[in-house]
């Protein structure tokens, strides 16, 4: 099912990330590849660049990945993870930085909307646009 855009959920809290993923699964189903991560490198509240990178890699396919984040550090750390991925895999047409997008949307609603759009076979641009409409 890798022709669908995949979704990665990044929260400061592993509970929030997992709970969001549960909601996506229940509301959207199994077509969309989904990964989540939360917590800092010591397991406290925060985000972990290495874990975000691993989550993205675990679902990265030709259609790309939409990343939904919660507060500031989750976004900054996700951007860093995408950059590290790009540095490892090299630039170019199919390079990760062109296939991974961080959506500016509320994490729970955004993840559900993005997954719904992705399940319909939409492009990465459309998936992110739909999620970002929520930010009004």
């Amino acid at each position: 099912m890798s022709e669908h855009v995949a979704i990665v959920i990044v929260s400061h809290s592993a509970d929030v990330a997992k709970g969001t993923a549960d909601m996506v699964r229940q509301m959207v189903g199994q077509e969309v590849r989904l990964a989540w991560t939360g917590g800092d490198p010591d397991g406290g509240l925060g985000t972990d660049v290495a874990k975000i990178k691993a989550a993205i890699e675990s679902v990265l396919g030709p259609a790309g990945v939409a990343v939904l984040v919660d507060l500031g550090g989750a976004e900054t750390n996700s951007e860093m993870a995408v950059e590290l991925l790009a540095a490892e895999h090299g630039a170019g047409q199919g390079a990760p930085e062109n296939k991974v997008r961080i959506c500016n949307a509320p994490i729970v609603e955004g993840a559900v909307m993005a997954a719904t759009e992705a399940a319909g076979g939409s492009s990465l641009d459309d998936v992110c646009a739909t999620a970002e409409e929520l930010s009004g």
Partner: protein
Amino acid sequence: MNDDLKLRLIDATAAVIRDNAERLTELDQAIGDGDHGINMKRGFEAIAAERDALARLAWPQALHKAGMALVMKVGGASGPLYGSLLMQMGKAADEELGSIGDLATCLGAGIEAVKQRGKSSTGQKTMLDVLVPVQQTLQQAAGNGAELAAAIAAARRAADEGQAAAKEMVATKGRASYLGERSKGHDDPGATSSRLLVHTVCDVLEGAR
């Protein structure tokens, strides 16, 4: 000599962050998400854990590796911000990093990475309000052919004034921006940690003369 300078920089910065972690966290609890001290402590401990290996590397590699440690270990936005600062300084550094001008150039490159990463600039109540004036001061000192002692004194003043100025700013970046006007009058945690680090580097450089 250079190995020794690196070791002293690593030890001194780790110590100042450890000693001030609680205060940084308190400042962050007032206007941010309350994790700056603990996050920075974790990051600088990660650098300190590799102190011997880092000290054996040339400046470009040492700065890059230390920056990577911050990126991977901090767990908050300050990881990529301080991490990118060091990583980009590493890219701009030459093997020796032997003059005030070299340091200014290198810091300037690091600051550009912070601006890009944080999508921010000066005047937004962030670490940049300390780092940018410090860099400008060093650049000027190098241009004027200033002695190291004078350059260090000027850098310290610039850091103090930058932090004081940031305190009176309204935050428009990061968690503190949620508070808007109410962030005014609060010390910014990032500006505070940057001032502490600038002072610490100055202390070490003075000792290194």
